[in-house]
């Protein structure tokens, strides 16, 4: 039986919530942006009037103001956004239990089994559109298809407060390849160099050829483009899906120019990652370091260890090693991310490495746990390394609580 999947995307979510509470903002170009003093000053969302003036998401406030000097900037109110995100989601649950969130403002709904109860797909779609608008005061676009990838394309094609049905693959074949889920800049460059420009071009290639161009990922894209994606809509809040990676990142208050700066930020990030690991009783195997320089170029690198660990010190040392091997400071960096993957449950027994001696592992663990306990009881700032005291401005960022907003909802379930 053919599935019926809806992709519901709230229109300019952050901006809509702001306009809901400040109706006067509906008639002026407005954008939600972070705090420029903390260097989070990029546009997160904008309303239709701002969009008409050419304001783009992720550009800096300065650039946006150049295009539109009268642009009104609102600071984000994340508590409000997650409240509305929850309310919209609980409305979705009245139509199906299969709801998979994709960020705060997007969700996939599998309504295959609900159609008989509600009458038709059209009824469900129009009722969701009407109720979200009337009861919550937000508008959304709904894409309808028989798989998740096409449904998402549908919601991109749908206008504000309306729906778009994709009934056959031909409906999307003329769209540019980059509109397909997970096709990023580097993939698109490669595809263009092989004269593949549209989703139809991808779909019509033999599957093997795409694998030659893009590696393993090519097969996945071919499946997506042909509408053969069969991945189920996951049930959010169910505990059967294990955590796959844990990571923290930060845009520092000033650019990082040398190894001391970098080490300072890395210490904090490694500490907070390892403390989250330990709380969830996990070991990691792979460390991934992500750097973004002042020109906003991002690069990431990873290394896999010979044995499992959960120590902040190990994460820190791996990151330093990765950096020293592959990067330098010709261009200063503005944001750093550290994540660990290859996670496994902590056991009481550990497979030791025969070739390498490491007598101090237990001591380091005890030390880190003691530090953690002190922080838990007396506050995050109660104990820190000397390095952090040397540059209080820089070490002001990067404590764990700053990041719990998005990742925790995902990891702590």
């Amino acid at each position: 039986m053919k599935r019926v999947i809806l992709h519901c995307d709230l229109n300019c979510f952050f901006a809509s919530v702001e306009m809901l509470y400040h109706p006067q903002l509906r008639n002026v170009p407005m954008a939600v942006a972070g705090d420029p003093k903390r260097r989070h000053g990029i546009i997160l969302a904008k309303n239709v009037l701002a969009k008409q003036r050419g304001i783009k998401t992720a550009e800096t406030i300065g650039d946006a103001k150049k295009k539109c000097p009268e642009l009104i900037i609102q600071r984000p109110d994340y508590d409000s956004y997650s409240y509305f995100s929850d309310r919209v989601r609980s409305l979705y649950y009245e139509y199906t239990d299969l709801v998979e969130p994709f960020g705060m403002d997007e969700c996939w709904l599998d309504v295959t089994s609900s159609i008989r109860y509600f009458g038709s797909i059209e009824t469900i779609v129009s009722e969701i559109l009407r109720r979200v608008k009337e009861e919550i005061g937000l508008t959304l676009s709904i894409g309808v298809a028989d798989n998740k990838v096409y449904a998402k394309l549908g919601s991109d094609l749908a206008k504000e407060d309306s729906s778009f049905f994709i009934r056959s693959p031909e409906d999307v074949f003329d769209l540019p390849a980059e509109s397909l889920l997970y096709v990023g800049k580097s993939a698109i460059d490669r595809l263009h160099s092989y004269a593949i420009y549209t989703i139809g071009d991808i779909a019509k290639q033999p599957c093997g050829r795409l694998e030659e161009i893009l590696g393993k990922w090519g097969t996945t894209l071919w499946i997506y483009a042909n509408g053969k994606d069969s991945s189920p809509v996951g049930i959010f809040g169910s505990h059967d899906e294990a955590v796959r990676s844990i990571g923290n990142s930060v845009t520092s208050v000033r650019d990082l120019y040398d190894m001391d700066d970098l080490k300072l930020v890395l210490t904090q990030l490694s500490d907070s990652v390892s403390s989250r690991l330990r709380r969830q009783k996990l070991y990691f195997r792979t460390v991934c370091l992500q750097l973004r320089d002042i020109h906003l170029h991002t690069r990431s690198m990873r290394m896999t260890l010979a044995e499992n660990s959960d120590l902040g010190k190990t994460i820190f040392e791996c990151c330093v090693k990765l950096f020293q091997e592959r990067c330098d400071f010709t261009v200063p960096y503005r944001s750093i991310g550290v994540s660990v993957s290859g996670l496994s449950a902590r056991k009481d027994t550990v497979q030791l490495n025969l070739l390498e001696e490491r007598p101090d592992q237990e001591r380091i663990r005890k030390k880190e746990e003691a530090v953690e306990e002190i922080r838990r009881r007396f506050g995050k700032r109660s104990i820190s390394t000397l390095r952090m005291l040397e540059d209080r401005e820089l070490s002001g960022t990067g404590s764990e609580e700053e990041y719990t907003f998005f990742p925790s909802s995902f990891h702590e379930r």
Partner: protein
Amino acid sequence: MIRKYVDVICLNDKGGNVKPLYLIWDENRKIPILKIKEICPRASLKVGGSGTRYTCVFSSNRVRHLYFDRGKWYVEMNDYVV
């Protein structure tokens, strides 16, 4: 029209329901709510806001919407007459 936050005296019943009984207007007028005609989740597009809307009957010819939004009560107001 503006959103005017107001004090409200409520009855929290055994079933966990909240029923507004009196609206306090300008700190000193205690206006009884005679009847609640409808309770539904609703956005207030006129004054901005979104929550639970109580359609309240204050007297035979005065019916007003009272909104309960994350712990606060408000009415839509364009003048001082309730």
